[in-house]
């Protein structure tokens, strides 16, 4: 520092100049990214917010008249005959079903996905690619096709029922189609790779010498898992849970095909407003509500999991 006293600039001036140039360059370089974020995320979001405060058009679309009806309709309904307001408990029950089914699906993918990821990650290096390939194969097929395949498995004359009838475990076919079970089963299948991949990445990074160290220090297999492995692969588990839970909440195809018309999920409810319901503002408001719910859920989840970390 003292050597700088001889330069004609006051101390720090050169650094500051370099810093501003640096900042300018950084802004310039990130312009494309910013443009994409604005066009792809902020823009549509803004449209949704505006639409949610407009009046439904007669044949879909919106009229440019300000209205709170869209937001009101998310929780109350105007009775068609006497114009009184009643709770929109259909919306609430649909929301609740979406939430609980998504939660159950996330837990199921955790139970199945973590051991699967573990299995793949502990294979000898040459064989891992093969197993990873198998995990990702479903991605190569259209979601609708995969869902219809599930339908083929679980419908009354489907493979599962046929087999169970043959070996005499059941006397008449189980009704699995068009139930919450069908939706949960389908979503677990569809979103499982999204759990396996991030957990695999975490297990792959895990230093197995730490597991040996835990055993060396008298940890049983279970304690070593709980005290050492689990905390270290937690980032992967968090990422996987988010990747499964969020799209589950808004799932549309799977509940539509496997749940039939009765067992709607939130995604179908929203779709209904933009389609047959012809109530775009309500659809927009419901979408925004879903977004808010996802964000709250994520914040809670991350809070809880990171607090555990701080406690050790």
């Amino acid at each position, binding site marked *: 520092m003292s050597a700088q006293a001889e330069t004609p600039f006051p101390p720090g001036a050169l650094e500051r100049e370099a810093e501003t140039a640096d900042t300018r360059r950084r802004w310039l370089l990130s312009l494309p990214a910013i443009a994409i974020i604005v066009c792809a995320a902020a823009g549509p979001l803004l449209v949704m917010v505006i639409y949610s405060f407009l009046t439904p058009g007669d044949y879909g679309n919106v009229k440019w008249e300000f209205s709170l009806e869209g937001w009101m309709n998310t929780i109350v309904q105007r009775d068609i005959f006497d114009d009184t307001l009643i709770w929109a408990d259909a919306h609430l029950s649909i929301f609740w079903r979406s939430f609980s089914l998504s939660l159950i699906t996330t837990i199921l993918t955790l139970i199945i996905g973590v051991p699967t990821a573990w299995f793949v990650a502990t294979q000898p290096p040459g064989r891992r690619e093969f197993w990873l390939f198998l995990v990702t194969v479903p991605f190569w097929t259209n979601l609708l096709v995969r869902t219809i395949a599930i339908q083929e498995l679980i419908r009354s004359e489907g493979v599962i029922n046929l087999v169970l009838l043959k070996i005499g475990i059941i006397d008449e076919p189980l009704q699995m189609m068009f139930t919450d079970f069908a939706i949960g089963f389908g979503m677990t299948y569809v979103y499982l790779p999204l759990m396996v991949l991030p957990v695999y990445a975490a297990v792959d990074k895990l*230093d197995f*010498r*730490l597991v*040996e*160290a*835990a*055993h*060396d*220090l*008298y*940890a*049983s297999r279970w*304690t070593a898992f709980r*005290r*050492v492995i689990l*905390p*270290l692969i937690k980032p992967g588990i968090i990422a996987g849970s988010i990747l499964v839970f969020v799209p589950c909440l808004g799932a549309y195809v799977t509940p539509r095909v496997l749940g039939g018309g009765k067992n709607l999920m939130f995604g179908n409810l929203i779709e209904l407003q933009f389609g047959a319901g012809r109530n775009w503002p309500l659809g927009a408001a419901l979408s925004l509500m879903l977004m808010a719910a996802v964000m709250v859920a994520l914040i809670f989840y991350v809070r809880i999991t990171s607090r555990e*970390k701080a406690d*050790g």
Partner: protein
Amino acid sequence: MTSQTAHAEPAEAAIADTTAIAVDVDRVSKIFRGETEVRALDDVSVGIRKNEFFTLLGPSGCGKTTLLRLIAGFEPPTMGAIRLGTRDISRLPPNQRPINTVFQNYALFPHMSVAQNIAFGLEMLGKPKAEVQRTVDEMLRLVRMEELKNRRTSEISGGQQQRVALARALAPHPEVLLLDEPLSALDLKLRKDMQIELKRLQHETGITFIFVTHDQEEALTMSDRVAVMSAGKILQVGRPRDIYERPAERFVANFIGESNFLDATLSGGTVELAAGGRFDVRVPEGVRDGAVSVLVRPEHASVRSGEAAEGETGATVENVVYSGEATVVHLRLATGEAMKIRLANAPQGGEAPPQTGGAAAIRIAPGAVTVLKD
């Protein structure tokens, strides 16, 4: 065991001997079967005594880590048995062995603080909270890490990590501590400090240390006994002095310190060097009269300029290398054999070392000649 107590004197002596053994490695082999079969340990037997600082020394890939991993329980032996005292622990999982390891890369838990790392083993043993706390504090003091106890292990230096690894392994007070090249990642200065510290810790805790290194100086300065390994076998076990001065084989002599190997003829208890000179020697088991190879350490002989007199061997000086505390004189004997001699340097003005190209006379100290097995 109970039947042995009734035995007569010689057997009792044998019992006394086995009770002093902490870890008994009995004819252990380890074969890794992959694309090719690797015999990492080949019929290894060694008894490591209680409270001993025992070092496994050998070149890379000779099986040091494998032996440690077998003792720790991370791998089962393919053949043979490992006993702790007299109890066979070969099939016991690592968490049931009163043995702890300081890993080569330390393997500290990155999601825990320094103190939590040290507490881990004690907690796993189900010690009460107060005792865990007390032992952790004691360990932190022992390795001089009190101020850093709440740091994350990723936020401390390599030397500090090493001390935490040591404290973590010592905290449960194991019967045996295994150390796999714990100093290899440290710079020279820190390494010397830690060598002293390790010796101090071993002394204060009274725990048996099994230490792995491929640094011969480290092995000689720190150990009570050293086992020299090569290609999955233990070639020689002994005190540092025995290993250095009485190596059994050429490999051991070569691996530890500088060596001159000379041709000689053995008859009875004396050897006659091909280059001249008779010496009384101790004949190792299995070596018969006839042509043998002998070892002379460079500092166990002296050289002066001039023609050889009675009891000296003549040679020509090929090179003289000054290296601070010593001067190494490279010589060519009449037989054509090369020999180097290390002379301690006297203050300037003392006797000058021989000059390159000149004639020289070598005097080998009595007892400096060791007959090698091969």
